[in-house]
């Protein structure tokens, strides 16, 4: 195991290099895990509630920042009846959760939400249901009250939606949600509407119909919902940028370590070249060292990422349920593949140095 002995030749430097790789990969894994999870949650919720068609304001940058006025929603409801479910979505800055997600739903929609405790609230009661994660954080039971928008709201039940984001928030009636989320003096509004296909036509014909009849609205298939969220697009761009920066930094760290190894072992490399080793053989030895460092870095990086997610998840300012505590094995596999890529890319510069090296000059190196 010559390469292991070489790695252990400068243990502090090898440790620092492995930690540098770990930090870069941990950053990549953690933020990718958050993005993947966010998309998965939104797509999961869309799947759970069978979002066939999503209708939102055309000029809104994303469905969640959409505003649909009362008259227009009334018109939509008159046309599509119970197949259409208006939704009011927003967040409140509460002491117990700075991003308390509030979702206002219709009684028909409400019935599709499974409960783990208590019961669905009665329409017009002003009561609310609290998500499973929020109830654990708040330590409230059905029948107790939480403060929302400065007023006490009775909790009728605890729901489990399958989406941690929703489970960290609250569901209540449309009117109650509008009252909480609309600024004083402003006209109450809806955020978006969900439409099911059926007697009035297929999803494609309904989408086409809405886009034709309501120029100020936009209808999209539920499968495109997560992709249309500006938040996700911004996060994905951010993740890509951070990942590239982290990986370039990691490559530079490993390259630097290998260049230092070459500088320290120039004479030994000269000896090996003198006895017939080609630069490729020497490079292969360095590749083994690079792979060891990157493999250790990837393993430690994944451990770091899990710790990082747990720490961020515990930060109350982030909000309940927004951060995953684990991530798919495929992401860990990707991180190891990236470590392999780092090990290979990092060899480019050292390879150029090795191929220029002359055995005699290397032997005379002090």
């Amino acid at each position: 195991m010559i390469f292991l002995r070489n790695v252990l030749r400068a243990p502090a430097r090898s440790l620092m290099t492995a930690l540098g790789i770990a930090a870069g990969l941990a950053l990549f894994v953690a933020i990718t895990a958050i993005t993947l999870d966010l998309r998965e949650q939104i797509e999961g919720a869309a799947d759970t509630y069978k979002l066939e068609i999503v209708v939102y304001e055309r000029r809104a940058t994303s469905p969640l920042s959409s505003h649909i006025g009362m008259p227009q929603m009334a018109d939509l409801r008159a046309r599509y009846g119970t197949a259409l479910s208006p939704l009011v979505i927003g967040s409140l800055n509460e002491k117990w959760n700075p991003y308390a997600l509030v979702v206002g739903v219709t009684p028909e929609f409400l019935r599709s939400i499974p409960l783990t405790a208590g019961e669905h609230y009665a329409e017009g009661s002003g009561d609310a249901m609290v998500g499973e994660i929020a109830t654990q954080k708040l330590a409230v039971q059905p029948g107790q009250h939480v403060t929302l928008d400065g007023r006490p709201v009775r909790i009728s039940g605890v729901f489990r939606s399958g989406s941690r984001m929703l489970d960290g928030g609250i569901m209540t009636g449309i009117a109650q949600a509008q009252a909480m989320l609309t600024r004083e003096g402003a006209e109450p509004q809806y955020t978006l509407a969900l439409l099911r296909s059926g007697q009035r036509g297929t999803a494609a014909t309904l989408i086409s119909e809405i886009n034709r009849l309501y120029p100020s609205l936009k209808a999209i298939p539920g499968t495109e919902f997560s992709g249309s969220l500006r938040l996700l697009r911004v996060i994905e761009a951010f993740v890509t940028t951070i990942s590239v920066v982290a990986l370039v930094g990691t490559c530079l760290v490993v390259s630097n370590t290998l260049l230092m190894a070459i500088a320290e072992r120039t004479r030994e490399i000269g000896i090996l070249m003198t006895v017939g080793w080609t630069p490729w053989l020497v490079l292969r030895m360095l590749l083994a060292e690079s792979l060891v460092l990157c493999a250790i870095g990837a393993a430690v990086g994944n451990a770091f990422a899990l710790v990082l997610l747990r720490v961020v998840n515990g930060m109350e300012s982030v909000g309940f349920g927004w951060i995953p505590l684990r991530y798919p094995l495929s992401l860990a596999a990707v991180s190891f593949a990236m470590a392999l890529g780092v090990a290979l890319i990092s060899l480019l510069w050292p390879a150029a140095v090795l191929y220029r090296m002359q055995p005699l000059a290397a032997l005379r190196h002090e």
Partner: protein
Amino acid sequence: MNNAAPLLAVEGLSRHHDGGAVKALDGVTFEARAGEVVALTGPSGCGKSTLLSLIGLLDQPTCGRVCVAGQNLAMVRQPGNFRLHQIGFVFQFHHMVATMTLLENVEAPLIALGLPRAARRERASNMLKQMNLSARADFLPANVSGGERQRAAVARALINRPSLILADEPTGNLDRHNNTIVLNLLMAHARSQGALVLIATHNPEIAGAADRRIELCDGRLVA
């Protein structure tokens, strides 16, 4: 008198530096035959190491030519490959790789040769046995004596059974006992394998034991 074709033919070999201001080697011509042990003597800086470097394809001559086994070295396209098959090097300061055991150091040329691991191990172990170093095979160079290191360096030089051994002050750092051992090993190889051993040395004992002596002074052949 040996009438066989020379294994090594050096003709008008020069190596100049700084545009000719420094003449490390100047018009050296000589021949040496297989099975010979030739001592290369002369004061420090006379050009012994330069000559060995040029013969060993570690450096390029300014003019002149070197032929090994009839092959003009100027025509060799892969110097590393040529060294691997034809030349063994022994240096003054053993030059072992610190993170390789003695066995791995001896095995190193065989790795370049592309031999399978088992075959490499067997051949390197046998070579260490001949050097009476079997008990030290798994030791790192730092954990053995200077004499043992140099014997291992000789083993590494001989492992590919080269036709030409270039030894640059191989006993310069050894005591008298190890000096004799290393010299005997090199001479035994020359005799048994029919190899040419060219030894650059200051040591009169080695020079005296060699079959022939070539003396350099200021880059020129004087005897």
